[in-house]
């Protein structure tokens, strides 16, 4: 793994700017960091921080994801447009999350909520077949 200086320059004129060869040392460091963070996330999960559990776990997972994206997926060295395109998917995903979960979270805050209970499935009866004969 000491071949970081291997020649790939023969093609530099043909593929200029298209690739960046990371050193093996960098990959290995990232791997060690990822494994370490995995241990931390497991260790932290043994304690109960109440509502913060999810935030902590997602925070660590996001750091790990960032490492994978930046180094294993070479995004750190990629062209601006590729960065924008890939990262915009997270932006749009967050829109789905924010609005859907905000609806879910604020539904109980409606001022009529105290009179409106959520019935459980067993309280209602369903027809066994719905127009199956058509």
């Amino acid at each position, binding site marked *: 793994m000491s071949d970081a200086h291997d020649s790939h320059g023969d093609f530099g004129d043909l593929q200029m700017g298209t690739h960046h060869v990371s050193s093996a040392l960098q990959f290995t460091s990232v791997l060690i960091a990822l494994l370490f963070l995995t241990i931390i996330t497991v260790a932290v999960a043994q304690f109960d921080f109440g509502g913060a559990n999810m935030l902590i776990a997602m925070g660590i997972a996001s750091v790990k994801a960032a490492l994978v994206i930046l180094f294993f997926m070479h995004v750190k060295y990629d062209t601006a*447009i590729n960065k924008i*395109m890939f990262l*915009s*998917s997270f932006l*749009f995903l967050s*829109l*789905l999350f924010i*609005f*859907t979960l*905000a*609806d879910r979270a*604020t*539904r109980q*805050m*409606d001022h009529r909520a105290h009179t409106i209970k959520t019935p459980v*499935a067993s309280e209602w009866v*369903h027809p066994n*077949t*719905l*127009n*199956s004969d*058509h």
Partner: protein
Amino acid sequence: MTTQVPPVETATPGVETERKTYLNVTKGFMSWAGTLDHKRIGLMYLIGTSAALLAGGLFALLVRLHLWEPTGMLFDNAEYNQVFTLHGVFMVFLFVIPAIPAALGNMILPLQLGAIDVALPRLNLLSFYLWVTGAIFAILAIVAGGFDTGWTFYTPYSLYTQQAVGLIGMGVFILGFSSIFTGLNFIVTVHKLRAPGLTWFRMPLFIWALYATSILQVLATPVLGITVLLVAIERLYHIGIFDPRLGGDAVLFEHFFWFYSHPAVYIMVLPAFGIISELVTVHSRKPLFGYKLIAFSSLAIAIISFLVWGHHMFTSGQSTYAMFAFSFLTFFVAIPTAIKEFSWVATVWKGSIALNSPMLYTLAFLIIFAIGGLTGVILGALNVDIHLHDTYFVVAHFHYVMMGSIALAFFAGLHHWWPKMFGVMYNETHAKISCALIFIGFNATFIPQFIMGSRGMPRRYATYVPDYEPYHKASTIGAMVLGVGVAFMVYYLVVSLLQKKRAMENQWGGVTLEWETPTPPPLENFSKPPVVTNEVYDYSKLDLETTITPAK
């Protein structure tokens, strides 16, 4: 936007030499089925989507005929539910979404960019075959007993009904990937294959619109994919995510569905805006008014459209807070849309307006889209929408946008690029008659629907309260006129292919790159790679001789 390329050498007048075009360069079934040429793929899409349009239109006519009588004329309720569902599914998934980007876009986008093909031609062909597969699934689903969920597949009904929802769900999933791949391909093509000198702000607005559309296709469609996949899993395995009997939530389905399907409305309408932007300037022979504002408004619409899906759910039990946010954001879509409409009108103003058939279709679009867009504003207001939601008012509104605007823009584009695509000209008088029939028929169909909708007629009704009978009758008569208009259009377009009346080299006097190639284009589009030196829509550089030179 002329290029430095000298005009293509013209054949000696009177001598018939068959020039090699993309249409005749190779022959045989496999040369089409296995083609990687964007124009041939676009043409195959055109045939496929047009067939879907005619099928969907036939279903629509059957629906309208059925509703002639309050008790229904043709079907029992089960059949009626299937027919209106088929109308929706065929029109939305097989026609409106792919028609403009995949058929006209495939044909025109690389030409306007000065490229010899799209960036990923194999993916383009795959995308077409995915469309075919999706269409086959839709037909299989009909054969397997049909489906009656409406095109929205709302759970839990779609989970309980015993019909072929799984098959059509699979079809929609596959069609989704077809749409994703088309969009992906266009984004890459626009980024990587622009001709030298074709900067972003020299790009024709059709390309801007297709680019914005592609972003939506790539980012919204996967959510539809996972949604129909979950419905399929739910039907097979009863996991319970969407099934209230098992603790699932039908409103979550609506969130997922509209996260896609609202942007999908703009997937459908943005390419139509692109065509209209293009046609308004060519047929007014005047640079587009507010070019940059229109370009950015396409992007703005694309992004805002992700923030407003909840306005389809104002009555479905969202929290008041979510309704507040969604209604507020919904009104913001009105602004870029209004900017576009005003800019088009300002472009026509003091132009040199050629009243040929593409321009007539464009003018019809501008009027109909004004109604479609403005009634959308009425629906954006929360309390008014509560009254109008799920009534014929909404049906009329989205038909004004989807049929009236998008299909008319598609027809306009088809008439505009028909001479480019085939080198032949249709009968202009016939085209004008057909445009008039479509315009009159369309308004006669849907204005009564606005009226009965605001008076409370709910949608998707196989039978109805007799109070609404006069409006239904008027609407049915209008639909027949509209049907005759479309059928007549198909007739004269087919005739034009058989009569082979030569079109002009540059039939309308366009200055974008697609008019720089011979008509119809050769296999690899340009004899020499074009270089763009002019600003966009600069009609002072137009070579008017090409507009009266017959194509070879």
